[in-house]
């Protein structure tokens, strides 16, 4: 009875650590490949287009409406205290440190992570990955490295874009729709937003990029059982990447706040 209970409890724990171990091994093999093997720049550029360019609309809409709604909600509360002009600072700091990186990461997970997992998963179940191996091409060099490099470059740029558009949308809503004084709005925003807030947001973007790419590629590379397996791998890639982004965001916030403390100093 007790042994059965331990097995019941232990199996998911062992599975979880096995899964984390496999993702870490994939990450280490990818970095080893980046250092020691030739990089396929054509595939890297193709992935830049897929990840960076094709995510533009999604990121712009996410940034614009997040900044706009956040500015409106903050104004509705702050205005009661006569602090309407502080909205700019709140929107700017929040979008730089949290909303920009997290929401961009979640949108990229849905758009890019799912596509990576489905594409690699389909290659796996149709023997295309075996064909790569049989042609003396390592799947990590050919499939994972270009995606990793493209994500490492694209994500910080997408987050920077989301932050910029979010702040601009907040400004537009506050000044033109809610009638906040523009001079005080900008003065407060510039006073309270520091370079460290932007660096923190971009650092998070870089970490989220790695989480998304390794989880999604791992799910694709380990998918099985035909179309059902690919569908399952894709769903799991999106769910696991999203959860990983949200969980890591908390720990990153706590750790990065030591290096880049929040607030005016």
């Amino acid at each position, binding site marked *: 009875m007790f042994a059965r209970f331990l097995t019941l409890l232990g199996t998911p724990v062992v599975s979880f650590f096995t899964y984390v171990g496999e993702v870490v091994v994939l990450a280490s093999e990818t970095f080893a490949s980046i250092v020691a093997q030739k990089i396929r720049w054509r595939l890297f550029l193709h992935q830049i287009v897929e990840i960076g360019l094709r995510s533009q609309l999604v990121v712009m809409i996410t940034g614009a409406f997040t900044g706009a709604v956040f500015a409106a909600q903050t104004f509705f509360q702050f205005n009661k205290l006569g602090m309407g002009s502080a909205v700019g600072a709140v929107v700017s700091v929040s979008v730089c440190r949290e909303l920009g990186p997290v929401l961009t990461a979640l949108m990229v997970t849905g758009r890019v992570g799912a596509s990576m997992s489905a594409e690699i998963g389909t290659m796996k179940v*149709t*023997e295309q990955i*075996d*064909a790569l*191996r*049989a*042609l*003396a*091409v*390592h799947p990590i060099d050919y499939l994972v490295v270009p995606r990793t490099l493209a994500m490492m470059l694209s994500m910080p740029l997408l987050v920077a874009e989301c932050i910029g558009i979010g702040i601009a949308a907040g400004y537009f809503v506050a000044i033109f729709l809610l009638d906040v004084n523009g001079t005080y709005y900008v003065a407060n925003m510039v006073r309270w937003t520091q370079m460290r807030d932007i660096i923190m947001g971009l650092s998070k973007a870089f970490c989220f990029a790695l989480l998304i790419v390794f989880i999604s590629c791992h799910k694709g590379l380990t998918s099985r059982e035909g179309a059902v397996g690919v569908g399952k791998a894709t769903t799991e890639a999106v769910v696991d990447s999203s959860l990983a982004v949200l969980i890591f965001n908390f720990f990153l916030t706590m750790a990065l706040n030591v290096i880049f403390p929040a607030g005016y100093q």
Partner: protein
Amino acid sequence: MIAVRGLKKKLAGQEILCGIDLTVAKGETLVIIGRSGGGKSVLLKHLVGLMHPDAGEIWIDGENIIGLSERKLAAIRRKVGILFQGGALFDSMTVEENIAFPLREAGERNPKTIREKVNEMLEVIELEGEQKKMPVNLSGGMKKRVGLARSIIRRPSCILYDEPTAGLDPVVSDSINRLIRRLQERFRVTSIVVTHDMKSAFHIADHIAYLHQGGIYFYGTPQELEISPDPLLQDFLLGRSER
């Protein structure tokens, strides 16, 4: 050229290969036949290191490939081409790009050289003028021929064929058989062919091995197989399910 010693493999608790011993000489064509699910494709995948055995050795050109890392296996894989059952073409690439893939990966950058070699391969597989088609627009037989062209463009010394005629009509099957024969004559490659198709087996084989219950039940020439009185072999040759 290729020697297999005591190869064993279990999949999902079931013993698929139980101590296979085989030798294939340079330039020889060995056809492996046997019932569906008998482990023929599993055996073939072991020969290029796509699967790892539970026990045994595989020697290719005097080197035991068991235990080699994926990167060290690359050198062996350059000598051995494999034609997968469904062709395993890269579906994001055209026919031309699929065939040129091994050349580009080997560092060939000259478009003229690549084009010439691809055209030569298209001529060998009798698919001239189809280079711009995507795999989704090809028939099963065409996919297999393109897969074959991709496997042989770098002139491997050995080619493995996994069910090259499965699911094809008799005319296309015959064209594939003739193609395999032509490759043997033109490039003098060592070939291992896994098939159920007895017509194909008799057409291309120097030797035939019958895989049964995880072991080699029969090994001999096509003539020896044809005259064998063994009821199991006769049932297989004549396609009899009951006696």
